[in-house]
């Protein structure tokens, strides 16, 4: 069925989009969430495993304190209230990449609640409400082989690698964000970008979307002005900043076309197709699994000491937006120029260049802001930029994790 999509500007003039984002961040702790297995990517499949993360009968989880600390720091950076009493819960469902057929997660007693993150969009600050920040364990990875597409259909066998099973995963859920109108896709992207930068500045994850250490689910709904919010859809595993923007935009267009034709939006999970930029339905939410959450009896409740939380708050680094503000002042840039630098992703580069001896006044005199256009400069001016730091970006506190790929290794381990 081909649906002719209406023009975007026309759609957002009539419909009010509401967005919401769920972001998963893999923490860069030395060991897994509930066992002592090392977290280092690139290992042979099923070599970073033990009885605990394999869920062998009789094994028991022990919570990783560093992961709890990292989660609380993320919560603090997002202006959340840190719970004085928090519990893990079991989320029950059957899936072969989940060793216990339940995931240890958090349900109604998360570690951090009720915060916000300010995001700058076209010179305006948009405050995104944070519903909750909680901690859970990642699952393993399934690979379907023998088919043409790598998908389950047509595959002759499925292989599971449990190296990822049990890696600590922080889930950050926003409150619904209404009122952004035509800017909704850009706001979504700006939020994920800012969130990524905040988490990176905390040094708790390498937050690489392309490697899956930051994953995003995007909720979108449309309603007519003054009407109650519409039914939302959830677009899963959006794996780049550009895709976050595209997912919202394409859902706005698709939903508008459905509504315009007198149809109803189904509450469902959808997947973004990178090639076409449109979303297609996944499983229907109406028949979604009942996860039968209940408090995890193998773990004791968490009661973070308020003094400890206060000391973590005290020790938070300067957050990216504040940091950028300070740089702007130091460099003497106008708002517009600074925005160009940020949009070009050049902040760290300029910082390092200045740290390497360049004058901060030089950029103020007009060069830095137009940096993306730099190739038009005379070749000689480039020489002042070197030596450019080889590691980019160089913030050494980021991660001790290997920079090797997390993508699936060659299937030679099958033997």
């Amino acid at each position, binding site marked *: 069925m081909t649906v002719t999509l209406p023009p975007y500007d026309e759609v957002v003039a009539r419909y009010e989009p509401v967005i919401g984002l769920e972001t998963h961040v893999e923490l860069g702790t030395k060991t897994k969430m509930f066992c002592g297995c090392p977290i280092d990517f690139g290992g042979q499949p099923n070599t970073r495993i033990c009885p605990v993360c394999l869920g*062998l*009968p009789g*094994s*028991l989880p022990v919570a990783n304190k560093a992961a709890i600390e990292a989660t609380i720091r993320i919560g603090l950076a997002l202006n959340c209230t840190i719970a004085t009493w928090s519990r893990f819960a079991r989320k029950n469902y059957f899936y*072969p990449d989940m060793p216990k057929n*339940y995931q240890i997660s958090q349900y109604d007693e998360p570690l951090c609640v009720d915060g916000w993150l300010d995001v700058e969009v076209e010179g305006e600050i948009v405050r995104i409400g944070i519903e909750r920040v909680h901690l859970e364990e990642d699952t393993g990875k399934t690979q379907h082989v023998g088919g043409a597409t790598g998908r389950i259909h047509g595959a002759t066998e499925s292989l599971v690698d449990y190296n990822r099973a049990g890696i600590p995963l922080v889930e950050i859920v926003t409150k619904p964000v209404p009122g952004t109108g035509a800017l909704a896709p850009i706001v979504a992207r700006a939020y994920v970008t800012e969130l990524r930068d905040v988490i990176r500045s905390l040094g708790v994850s390498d937050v690489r979307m392309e490697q899956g250490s930051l994953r995003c689910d995007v909720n979108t709904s449309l309603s007519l002005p003054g009407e109650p919010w519409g039914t939302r859809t959830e677009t899963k595993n959006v794996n780049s900043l550009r895709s976050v923007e595209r997912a919202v935009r394409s859902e706005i267009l698709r939903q508008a076309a459905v509504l315009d034709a007198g149809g109803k939006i189904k509450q469902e999970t959808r997947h973004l197709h990178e090639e076409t930029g449109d979303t297609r339905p996944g499983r229907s939410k109406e028949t979604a699994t009942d996860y039968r959450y*209940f408090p995890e*009896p193998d773990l004791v409740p968490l009661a973070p000491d308020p003094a400890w939380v206060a000391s973590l708050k005290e020790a938070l680094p300067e957050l990216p937006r504040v940091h950028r503000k300070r740089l702007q002042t130091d460099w003497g840039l106008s708002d517009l120029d600074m925005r160009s630098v940020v949009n070009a992703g050049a902040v760290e580069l300029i910082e390092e260049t200045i740290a390497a001896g360049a004058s901060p006044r030089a950029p103020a005199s007009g060069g830095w802001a137009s940096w993306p256009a730099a190739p038009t400069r005379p070749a000689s001016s480039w020489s002042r930029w070197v030596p450019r730091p080889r590691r980019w970006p160089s913030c050494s506190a980021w991660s001790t994790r290997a920079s090797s790929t997390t993508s699936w290794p060659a299937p030679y381990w099958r033997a």
Partner: protein
Amino acid sequence: MPVGVKDIVATRGVPTTAGSRILEGWRPPYDATVVERMRAAGLVMLGKTNLDEFAMGSSTEYSAYGPTYNPWDLTRIPGGSGGGSAAALAAYEAPLTVGTDTGGSIRQPGAVTGTVGAKPTYGGTSRYGLVAFSSSLDTPGPCARTVEDAALLHAVLAGHDPRDSTSIPQPVPDVVGAARLGATGDLTGVRLGLVREFGAEGAEPGVMAAFRDGLDALTKLGAEVVEVSCPHFQYALPAYYLIAPSECSSNLARFDGVRYGLRVGDDGQKAIEEVMSLTREAGFGPEVKRRVIIGTYALSSGYYDAYYGQAQKVRTLITRDFTAAFEQVDVLVSPTTPFVAFPLGSRTSDPYQMYLADLYTIPTNLYGGPAISVPCGLSEGLPVGFQIMAPTLADDRMYRVAAALESAVGTLTPGELS
């Protein structure tokens, strides 16, 4: 010293079936903490003992590998779920065994075989390596022919284990010293609490008579008997049969044929869900399926508050009953089980009749305190157990009273063996 180990406790390289087909042939790559401690103390593993599948049952008839018989009468059950551990002691096949107690699985088999079975304080012995049935209740503990033997094994098994988050980081009470003190036969000043509400439940007359004899013996040693009220104990059985199945429905989800154990229906055609389903259909017995289904239902959205949530509230009330009772008395006492060993097959058709076997043992599990069963006499020629329940972390108290009772009434040995 050889020790029999209940086959739900992981033993490195030695098949650990939990009494289930679904784990047939599975050899754990590690030892449970209690087995590690046992070995470190120089104890040798003699073998694995039979049990109801995944420790769910009160007769050992639900073992996928066939029933165990009671050495006192081979037509009768040895109790459960740890019938194998108790029968091995009663038949002099092993001097010591390790059991696990979720709702009475150490104590009730001890009672009906004339042996001693102790459930330590929850968290006093590590659960690491116990194939989980109900995580918030499971407790490994010692089984023996005498109270002192049980205390000696208790001291070996117990202690903090960082691999079990619910393990208590405190020193183990001096259970051996307490057992030896009790054996001197002096209980002057010790207050025994008789739970009023248990009286109304009606144990068999012969069981009550033997229990009364035990109580009289303790009174003669100087103990004082006080009646206490624990009004919420009457809800213990229904609460237990929501909490334990709920946890079991989740704990047993991992048995799906994907990683270890039985796999059925993997013909290269069927989808993974079908293989999981066929494996679980073939691998689990009727009682396990019943509890998985009950637990799945109790945790379902829309029913959680009415069932699991409500049961947890009852659990809190039962804990309060214990706390209040222990302000008046040092220990609580009762028969361990309402009836003597029943004939094989007589209760399998009615789950509720089977569940009644744990009527007196379950409240302690919901509370988390320690309790011990020690023989107090015979009824119809079959052993009767006397249960002593103590406050959490006061495991030594129950050993003192149990040893005193043993010093007065002696140990029991099946006729043919004596």
